[in-house]
């Protein structure tokens, strides 16, 4: 996809607002609001840089509303039984508009968690590699891809990213 090099502060601010809203849907445990930030045909995928160096990357991929709702339902249900507070910190945002009217955005994400018996701690970090689109209700994810830095992951990854 060809892109226009265009990074006005207004666009970045708009995308940063979107990410802040997105983080709150996860940290405030509002799974329906999380789903609403995707297009009905949106894609949510999580993988690592080099987890499968000979055969391609292992992406956890949810395609479309049914899969997104299932992911949100499972994660929210899991967290009900494993009460974990999360803090998603999203930084280093860059965004540019593409020729076909989408917004290509990138950011860093760091997730801290606090569960029942531990102090707050770093959990995992990585990058967002996203495609956004404008709708009457604001920005929505056409694709939200999360690429984690770790190749060996923490045991409890029942979280949204």
């Amino acid at each position, binding site marked *: 996809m060809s892109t226009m090099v265009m990074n006005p502060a207004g666009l970045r601010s708009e995308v940063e607002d979107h990410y802040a809203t997105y983080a709150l849907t996860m940290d405030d445990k509002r*799974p*329906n609001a999380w*789903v609403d930030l995707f297009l009905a045909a949106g894609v949510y995928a*999580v993988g690592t840089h080099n*987890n*499968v*160096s*000979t*055969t*391609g990357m*292992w*992406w*956890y*991929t*949810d*395609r*479309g*509303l*049914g*899969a997104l*709702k*299932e*992911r*949100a*339902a*499972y994660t*929210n*249900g*899991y967290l*009900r*039984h*494993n009460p974990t507070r999360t803090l998603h910190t999203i930084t280093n945002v860059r965004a540019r508009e593409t020729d076909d009217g989408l917004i290509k955005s990138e950011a860093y994400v760091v997730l801290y968690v606090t569960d029942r018996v531990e102090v707050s701690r770093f959990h995992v970090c990585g990058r967002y590699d996203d495609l956004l689109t404008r709708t009457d209700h604001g920005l929505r994810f056409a694709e939200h891809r999360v690429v984690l830095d770790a*190749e*060996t*992951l*923490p*045991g*409890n*990854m*029942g979280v949204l990213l």
Partner: protein
Amino acid sequence: MSVSPDFRTDLATGVVDRAIYTSEEILALEKERIFARTWRYACTIRDLRNPGDYFTLSVADQPVLVIRGNDGEIRAFHNACSHRGAVLTDERCGNQGQVLKCMYHAWSFNLKGDLTGVPYDEGYGPGFDRGAYGLKPVACETFHDLVFVALRPTVPSLTDFLGEMADHLAPYVQGIEPIGRNSWIYDGNWKLWHENFRDDYHAEFTHRSIRDLLAGTTARGWNWGAAPGHSVLQWAFPPLDPPKYARALQRFSGVDFSDGTMPVGWSSMLAQGPPGPPEGFAGGEPPEIRQEVLAVFPNLDIQPGPKDTPRGMKAGYLQTVTPLGVNRARVDITVYSDVEDDDATRQEQLENLADTQGSWGKLSCDDTEAAARCQIGVRGEGGRSNLFTRGVAPGRGGESADVRDEYSQREFFRVYQQYLRDES
């Protein structure tokens, strides 16, 4: 170490002393007498497709390298330079070309492990014998498409080691292609993970979000302890019901499915197959879907694709658990498909299996939580033993046993105890 552990129970009865989950001494014995003496799954033959392709693993805390030679042979070596011991590669897998070269002093080895290069070797004098400094080999055998290694095997033949499991395993591990890999670390003893893959008693409770879709899953099936130390679980369930699953998910989570949206993640594997009975089915009602989990002593689990699905899917996964301490373990999982599958099919199968398995898997997360909770509890004084006594008929179970029985775990502990008490 030359002392046998003095268990407070006979583990083979299924009444298991909780010290095996918390004792540093027993962990040391497990490494010395089980992990160093048994055959350990390393990788598939298609991870080593070309000369120089290698795969690394840790066996009883020792670094091991498996590599394909120019002659097509797959060999295993200690992954340590014969000069000063530096590991030759710390990558998980890759291609080494024609030479294994140490980064420290550039000693070089060919793909057969022979020492071929020593910079400034005249300094070692005229009597220096390169032949004495090759890489130390590790026993290596294949079982169809699977590669196993052993440091000091008590059972010399891999086929003998697999015992009753060999015939059962063979059809599943021919013509498989690795398509995805994932690793994670959890806070629990390694056996808690492996036990769980010999256990279908927990499934309808631990995995209730998904098992609401699969009511009756554990109503029929069987449980078999396959000597020596292995096991097979098999269960059957009716075709899936996505609307029922959607209602259950909404109750479970609060996520709104009232707009008619159907969940399509894991269930898509079965629910979205072509309509009608599977190919070759003669008539009547389509058969139930049958699923198996195979466990190979001491730490390999295999879940092949469900039989009799509308798609007849072959894709499945191979999984090992490795102790990192008494209360910490690493899980490595490899998803495979049929070698004949095209790229689109492989991707679809990977996504389906990744949905439930691995560090994010909707089933694996539940199991990780269960292991972590057990580890916290067994170190207290709440009880001295864990119970694996379900299934009261004598023997090792089989087709007459309930899938929720625990013949599978008792067979594990019978052999586990034998190894730990073997002071030879």
